[in-house]
């Protein structure tokens, strides 16, 4: 009996072999290659030499690149802050709806996640351009005398970021509010806590894993959305993502691009690690 169990296990293992191989060949090895590449010297014209160097990392402290890093982080923080302020109430109210209405709102939130990001950004271009819908409306209402420039500014990029990443805050918050034990809030109220106090001492604390998960899901991608910055910022707003793209495709400095990617990746791992430490859970709340 024991023998058959053992044999069964051995055979089951073979089914994971393709996944194993594919992951090693197309995920693990390429990542190792990038790390190696980031320590190599760029050749004068094209390609890389086998010389070990730390220059690619030192280069990041160059004020020009340092500024891009800071700008990109600032934008990511601003995006995370606004999505939290908008997304938390949304997720909270959504979780308190009656089940059938809740499912309908859920569907409406998830649909944009399936639709093409470019299409949605393009919609904002139509709305925000100088001769666009928003300006026409403002002019017609007499709020402004001449069209204001919104498209191709920092503000437009921020709007696009918040808009694209808002569902990633709403869904985890919703999932943690929905799971929450309401009797604890009632207990706090019974013990004399006001509505607001009960919210801050009980509800917010209990739903914190959802908010933190939202932080991760919004912050991490916001650093790399180069096409969003290109389209809504008109190429004037540089993110770390744009920097990497330019190093690869224009400056042709692959080792520097690799070093930037390694730093970005380490930042991502650090954020996920912190999340796991803070919430004591392995998976991101509300994500699958």
């Amino acid at each position, binding site marked *: 009996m024991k023998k*058959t169990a053992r044999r*069964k*296990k051995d055979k*089951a*293992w073979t*089914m*994971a*072999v393709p*996944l194993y191989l*594919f*992951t*090693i060949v*197309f*995920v*693990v*090895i390429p*990542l190792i*290659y*990038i790390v190696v*590449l980031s320590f190599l010297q760029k050749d004068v014209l094209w390609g890389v030499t086998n010389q070990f160097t730390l220059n690619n990392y030192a280069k990041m402290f160059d004020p020009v690149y340092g500024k891009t890093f800071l700008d990109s982080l600032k934008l990511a923080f601003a995006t995370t802050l606004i999505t939290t302020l908008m997304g938390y109430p*949304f997720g909270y*109210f*959504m979780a308190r*709806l009656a089940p059938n209405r809740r499912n309908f709102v859920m*569907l409406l939130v998830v649909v*944009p996640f*399936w*639709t*093409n990001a*470019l*299409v*949605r*950004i*393009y*919609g904002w*271009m*139509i*709305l925000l*351009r100088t*001769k666009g*819908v928003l300006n*026409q409306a403002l002019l017609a209402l007499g709020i402004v005398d001449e069209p204001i420039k919104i498209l191709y500014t920092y503000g437009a990029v921020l709007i696009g970021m918040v*808009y694209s990443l*808002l569902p990633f805050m709403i869904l985890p918050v919703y999932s943690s509010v929905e799971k929450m034990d309401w009797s604890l809030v009632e207990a706090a109220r019974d013990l004399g806590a006001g509505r607001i106090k009960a919210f801050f001492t009980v509800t917010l604390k209990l739903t914190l894993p959802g908010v933190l998960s939202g932080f991760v899901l919004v912050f991490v991608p916001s650093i*790399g*959305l*180069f*096409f969003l910055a*290109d*389209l809504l910022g008109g190429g004037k707003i540089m993110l770390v*993502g744009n920097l*990497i*793209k330019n190093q*690869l495709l224009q400056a042709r400095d*692959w080792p520097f*691009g*690799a070093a930037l*990617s390694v730093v*970005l990746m380490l930042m*991502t791992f650090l954020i996920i690690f912190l999340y796991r430490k803070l919430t004591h859970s392995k998976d991101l709340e509300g994500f699958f």
Partner: protein
Amino acid sequence: MKQRKMHLSSLYLAFVLVLMYLPVLMVVIYSFNDSKSDVSWAGFTLEWYGKMLHNSSLMEALRNSIVLAVSSCAISAVIGTIGAVGLVRCNFKTKGLLENAAMLPIMIPEIILGMVFLAFFSFLNLPFGMMTLILAHTTFCIPYIFIVVKGRLVGIDKSIGEAARDLGASEFRMFFDITLPLVAPAVASGTLLAFAMSLDDVVISFFVTGAQTNTLPIKIYSQIKLGVSPEINALCTVMLVFTFILILISGRVGKTRKNRTISKEEQRR
């Protein structure tokens, strides 16, 4: 008091939802506008759809996108499904490590994955084009399917499979007769999600595509960069319709799955 609160929260939900759908709605409305560049409404037309259909480079990009999504989803459905089945049923030291590594493609920012593939494929001297696109898309499609199938497998009663084995079914028959039918809805919904992701991907495709091969999102990206044009509105609208069809199908799949689990619970009672 309570009634008014309810209204306020509904109002907020509605407000955010309107903001969410406004840009999408703009794209659809202006695809029917009979004016090349003007914002004002100049009458209903299907001209832009006709122009789109006769634009051979757009149609080629559409064909490429479909070929790419279908082939990478097919490969990743096989690898992801049997991988999940194999991993759930056995226990070895590197299992946790492998699971983490397999999830990496959807954990790290897309741009890094794109850069990693660009550097790695040129290191291998692979010609950039459909093949590199399929390899890259397969890599990020696997996690979606893997995680959905794994989630479903955990909820399945293990004794069903053991019973089949005790009755003499081979490993092979057990997989096809027992496991696969049970996880089929999960495979379908995971694959649909992966399909949508592949069809929409800009960032990774941008890095791994060759000069000759355009996918639809890449084509749209390069055109939008030049500004707003009604032809792109028409194309975007078509893509939206595509996506809605996918969502409808996936909703169907989800429903049958739900019904099945409910009936199973009822049987148990």
